[in-house]
């Protein structure tokens, strides 16, 4: 009798309070999901998730019929979650579900469909011209970040086939972009009227489209236009190249007594945009020592790349001087100059001109793109610099065929240990080559590429729990 009553009681209770009872006392359950579509971005979708218990969630998604599964980042512990599909291709049918865990239990939602639409914003487009079978394995899960400088601008992430998988559009142009160790995109944004890849805004974006940092010239500590370079250092501080100016007496060379010389500098901001330090190259150059100063004074040196070293000092590339400088932090002292008329003994065949993209490789060597203004041949150069004996040893010279000569812009980096990635502006090409300059992979770009970066950690292919 008691058993009958008890069972009836339970059945009755479960009928009356089934959901609430379970959600109150029961284990973890995903109670509601909402797919948010925004016309502002055709590839990115937000999925809002409510769970009955505090837990972490993760999105799992895949192109319908494909076995390549992708995951989102994991949401913070809580009952309300926002997840993002942020690695999708246009005009594809995707399926997705949400996974949730509170440590004890792992549950999954049903599977839902979502369709991506074509991108209407002005993004560049990319055509895979060639991909050597030998590189297929290494390219499979590789993604790249690049940008479009035109108004309206955009910053885009592409896969190895040139398909755009993530983008953000801007009314102004995106002059340069950089993938940070925090899985964010840092860029300089500005109108076309600012030359030299320059801009009046620094923007840091999450892959969910959220603006994490937004510095504007004239607001807060940003008092100068920035150009060519914006990056994060080891501590998460942000550094960029600036336009600087200095008044100088040029009357002895037919200039004004109070003439203005324009050049480049460095600015360092903390994570919240407070200026920590700045430096001007003009404090280290004597205008009267330059016989062409009346011509050069508009843009003396033309800085075009900046890289902060582990020791806190900076490398600074001057296109028109054909030199790389090492600038000490915080003293600002120029420690050495490398290149034409520099401090290092070097192989004359390795002399570079109008170079870009100075940086340090994983092995601690100095790498740059030699645009080759003097030779009309572009190449990547890797050096070992002995900064005590002031000797430069050329480790690699990766010479490109003449058709890939780029007068301006561009960058290069190692791709793996024994291949090289190039972004070449004039021929509008992205390349991966062997160390002999043999082209293994080529994307043709419709638009103006300034820089291309391989972006490790973008794709998540494994569930977190």
């Amino acid at each position, binding site marked *: 009798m*008691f*058993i009958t009553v*008890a*069972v009836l009681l*339970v059945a009755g209770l*479960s009928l009356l309070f*089934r*959901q609430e009872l*379970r959600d109150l*006392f*029961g*284990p973890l*359950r*995903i*109670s*509601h*999901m*909402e*797919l*948010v*579509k*925004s*016309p*502002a971005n055709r590839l990115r979708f937000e999925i809002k998730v409510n769970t009955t218990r505090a837990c972490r969630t993760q999105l799992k998604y895949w192109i319908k019929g494909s076995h390549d599964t992708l995951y989102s980042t994991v949401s913070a512990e809580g009952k309300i979650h926002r997840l993002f599909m942020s690695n999708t291709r246009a*005009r594809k049918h995707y399926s997705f579900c949400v996974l949730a865990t509170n440590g004890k*239990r792992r*549950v999954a*939602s*049903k599977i*839902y469909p979502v369709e991506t*639409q*074509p991108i*209407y*914003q*002005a993004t560049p*487009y990319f055509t895979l011209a060639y991909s050597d079978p030998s590189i297929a394995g290494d390219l499979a899960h590789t993604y790249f970040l690049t940008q479009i*400088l*035109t*108004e*309206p601008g955009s910053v885009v992430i592409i896969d190895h086939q040139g398909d755009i998988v993530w983008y953000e*559009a801007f*009314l102004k*142009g995106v002059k340069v972009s950089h993938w940070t160790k925090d899985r964010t995109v840092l860029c300089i944004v500005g109108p*076309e*009227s600012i*030359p*030299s*890849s320059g801009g009046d805004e620094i923007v840091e974006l999450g892959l969910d489209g959220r603006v994490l940092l937004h510095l504007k010239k004239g607001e807060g500590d940003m008092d100068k236009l920035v150009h060519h370079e914006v990056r994060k250092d080891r501590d998460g501080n942000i550094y960029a190249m600036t336009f600087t100016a200095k008044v100088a007496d040029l009357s002895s060379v037919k200039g004004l007594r109070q003439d203005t010389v324009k050049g480049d500098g460095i600015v360092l901001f903390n994570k919240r945009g407070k200026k920590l330090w700045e430096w001007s190259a003009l404090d280290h150059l004597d205008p009267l020592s330059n016989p062409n100063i009346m011509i050069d004074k508009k843009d003396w040196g033309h800085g075009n790349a900046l890289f902060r070293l582990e020791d806190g000092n900076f490398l600074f590339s001057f296109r028109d001087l054909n030199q790389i400088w090492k600038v000490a932090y915080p003293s600002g002292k120029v420690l050495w100059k490398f290149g034409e008329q520099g401090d290092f003994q070097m192989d004359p065949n390795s002399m570079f001109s109008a170079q870009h993209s100075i940086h340090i490789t994983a092995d601690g060597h100095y790498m740059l793109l030699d645009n080759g203004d003097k030779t009309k041949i572009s190449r990547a150069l890797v050096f070992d610099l002995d900064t005590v004996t002031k000797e430069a040893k050329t480790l690699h010279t990766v010479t490109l065929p003449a058709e890939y000569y780029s*007068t*301006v*812009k561009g960058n290069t980096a190692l791709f793996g240990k024994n291949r090289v990635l190039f972004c070449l*502006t*004039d021929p*509008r090409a992205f390349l991966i080559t062997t160390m002999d300059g043999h082209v293994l992979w080529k994307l043709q*770009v*419709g*638009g*103006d590429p300034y820089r291309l970066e391989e972006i490790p950690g973008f794709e998540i292919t494994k569930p977190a729990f």
Partner: protein
Amino acid sequence: MQLIKYNHRNFLLAIVALLASACTSGLEDETYSVYDANTLTDPNSGELAVRGTYASLKDNGGFGYYAGYLYWLNEYPGEVVSATLTSRQGVQLDQLTYDASNSTINDVWSSIYRLISRANESEALISAIDYVGNGSSAALKAQHLGEVRFLRALAYYDATSLWGGVPLLNKPSSESKEADENPAITDQATIEDFIISDLQFAEANLPESFEAAQIARATSGAAKALLGRLYLRRMEWQKAADKLQEIIGKGYDLRTRAEGGIVSLFDKSNRSDNEFIFVLKSSNESGSYTINSNSFGINSTPWDYNRGWGNFPILLNFYALFDPTDDRRKLLTGKYTTIYGQIEAVSKEYGGEATEAGKDTIIAKYVYNLKYPQAGNYDYAGFNNVPIIRYSDVLMMRAEALNELNGINQESVDLLNQVINRSGLPSYSLADFANTDALRDAIFEERNKEFFMEGRKRDDLIRWGKSASHGTDPLIKFKEKVVPTLTNASSWSDNVNYMYYPYPQSEIQSNTSLGADINKGRVK
């Protein structure tokens, strides 16, 4: 007690079992909803879409569409501009030996459809945005729609000029069905109806002008002028004359001789002028080539002039057409000092100054246009915006329409005189023309001298032929002018209708609606 205890335990187990089974198998599905933010979008998204559509005009970084390749298709086949031997695609167009795989033809097709798709997406997006409810205005929304529809009309105008019938894509991808993946060819008249409705919307909703910073955005005048151009192409003379009249005296005029005349119109210091009705915006900022400039500057002049590439050499016969007092001749390199210090000049035979070649004198083999000054050595950025429609074209189009409509008439002669007087030439009088044909020929000869390297050549030759033959032989003038410039006269074939280019190979391969014989009669 034991019994109760036992039963109590059973009771607990029953609850646990019920809940446990619910979690593993009978779990209630989560509720699910889709939230579409379309109607809540910021009007700035509309502005972004509009600017993105304009950007398609300079597709393909510095060379594409209005930044270059469209002009290859419109100028190379004519009798004025030749091609350099190093440009295989250009030589094919110049010598009429192109086929469906010509990369320039493919490139322009892709650019046009890229613009059209972008315009379609933009139109749907802007339509869905609540401008008024989000702090903006209905007028701005109508303007944004007018701008994208103007640009789409321009793209379809070009597509129908180049190919006749083309696929009509007029909706965003969200509304496209599987059948739309392989669109069939829509006849030209239907496309033109669509262009007209876009332009009528644009002329009604676009402002008459923009502030200086917004130069190169479409105005109602631009929409009217393009509509006039289309009516003219359709030989709808009355409509053309009426539409063009609506622009005359409405804030546009010819750059006068007092202001420096036509030479100064194309001077690098003249970045904008109210003679330009619609242009492709270009920048002279160092390094803007491939970003926001055009390929005309670097391509127009030869190496020994200012290290240009000389890819649009102009035949000396064209130079010889000009009266020496005609200011427009100054927009050609008749005589200049080369970067090596020599004098290069056109010979007397062609109306130039040179008598014979010498140590320091070179007889020019070609002349080059100076309408697109470049920023400087090795700097490919162009100073000048690329003119797409200018006021002198409006005047001459109305003169032409009235002549076709009414025969020789004083207003047509007056309109023509406005244009040539500005370049220092004396007026024509009505008595100079025996009949409609004579005035028409004069108008086209003057158009030739007025608009060289402005992308009008091909349209003009075909329209001239249509009028001269009363529609029976549109190629009569094209053949008369072009065949003498062919290296090999047998390149011409009477079996090819040069009014239309072949559909590009890339489209034929990807669009199953286009049959194998689609290019019959379009290539040799």
